[in-house]
């Protein structure tokens, strides 16, 4: 039931499909169904977040700009 091993998009979508397949089978009891639905909702939110992250408009950076950002972020963190 833990979502830790599937915290990437492809893992989340694969787990989500497995959950729906299990629910479609009609073999899950009430407790398992509710647990799967709760886990599935979490996965849907995660996947939606991932899709939103690549749906807000293309951002173009040059490598040196990214390096500068990372260095600034590291300095701020320090």
């Amino acid at each position, binding site marked *: 039931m833990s979502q830790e091993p599937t915290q990437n998009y492809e893992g989340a979508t694969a787990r989500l499909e497995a959950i729906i397949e299990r629910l479609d089978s009609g073999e899950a009891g*009430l407790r398992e*169904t509710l647990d799967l*639905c709760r886990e599935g909702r979490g996965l*849907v939110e995660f996947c939606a977040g991932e899709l939103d992250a690549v*749906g807000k408009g*293309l*951002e173009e950076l*040059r*490598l040196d700009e990214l*390096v500068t950002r990372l260095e600034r972020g590291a300095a701020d963190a320090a």
Partner: protein
Amino acid sequence: MQERLEERPAGIDGSALPGPWPVGQYATRLRAWLRERPRLQLFGEVWNLRTSRARIYFELRDAQGAVPCGMWRDDFDALGLPAGAVVDGTKVVVAGGPDFYPGTGTASPAFSFHVGDLRVAGEGDLLAQLERLRKRLDAEGLFVPQKALARPTLPRVIGVVTGEGGKARDDVLAGLARRGWEGRVVWAFAPVQDRHAAPRIARALSDLAACPEVDVIVVARGGGSLADLFCFCDEALCRTVALLRVPVVASVGHHTDRTLLDDVAAVSCSTPTHAAEAAVPCHCAQARADLHRQAGRLAGHGRRAVVQRARTLAHLSRAPGEHVAREHARLHQRLREIRAATRRRAHGERALSTRRALVLDRKATAAAQAARRHAGLDALAAALAAHDPQRTLERGYALVEDGEGGPVTSAAAARAQRAVRLRFADAAVDATIEQEP
């Protein structure tokens, strides 16, 4: 040998040259002498190439002359040249030395330049070098690591190595737009044209891979001749890519001139557009639609699971009451049936009692009537008994009867009869009437 010397013919008269010697001996010594000549390299074009099971023969030519060449087939195959790399007209460099086949009694002698090594020069040379390097890298297993990396279905950040201002940049953006992907692109521009570009490309790749947020890297170039693409066949570049932790999608070569980077990379595509699509395997719009549908199915499953079970529970909770009501109705019905049966039974019993009372009444009436009849009969019997002649006879009287049993009630009748019977109470006695005188 002594006998052969004895068979040696006489030399030419007047000639100062030694001999004559047997030609076979001379041929053998000639072969040994030629094989002692210095080994060297020659270059020219291959012509009249022909092969046998064990040897390869050709003529090495240029404008000034030619030398017949021979090479062991095993040595030629060990070069690892691609098929068709050496044909008539191919410029080659050969290494070896002169050799001579002395022949036999039936086989012809032949001179040849024995080739121990060979390389293709010019364009063919590049291909041959490339092929050798490809085999070496493959043997070292450098084509495997990139392909073993997990490629994200939906990368957030894509690094792109390409020439600044080239058409490949627009093609990459077009490919990303096709996927509906609008994440972050990190451009690492580098020269992609000549051989000296390889270190710059390798550094750009390493820098991109060093950024932890970069999920996948695309190396794109719009194609060109093999010489133009040779920077992507650089051994150091290939080794760098093979060791990167980030998957690399290559789009620099074509089917006809595949670069080594295409072999080392995780994925090789024919165009930068396809490379961009390969970097984002997920079609974002489709994925959003799928996710929406899956969320709906999840919600439906959850709702149905609760609602159906709630209905079942409600049904089950009503069941005892319904059962009691059914039992109540059934008992009520039974009660009504019992009452009705009781009424029917009482009515029947009442009718039966009435009938029986009537019958008894009738019987009582009949019995009274019978008793009355008996009493009347008894009276009649008593009256009758009072008039019974027998009673009179018992008192001492006698009854006179004629011969037919009829009573003789007068003296005249008795005289008329003459013979009569006197009936007493206990018996009858016949008597005769005697006439009075």
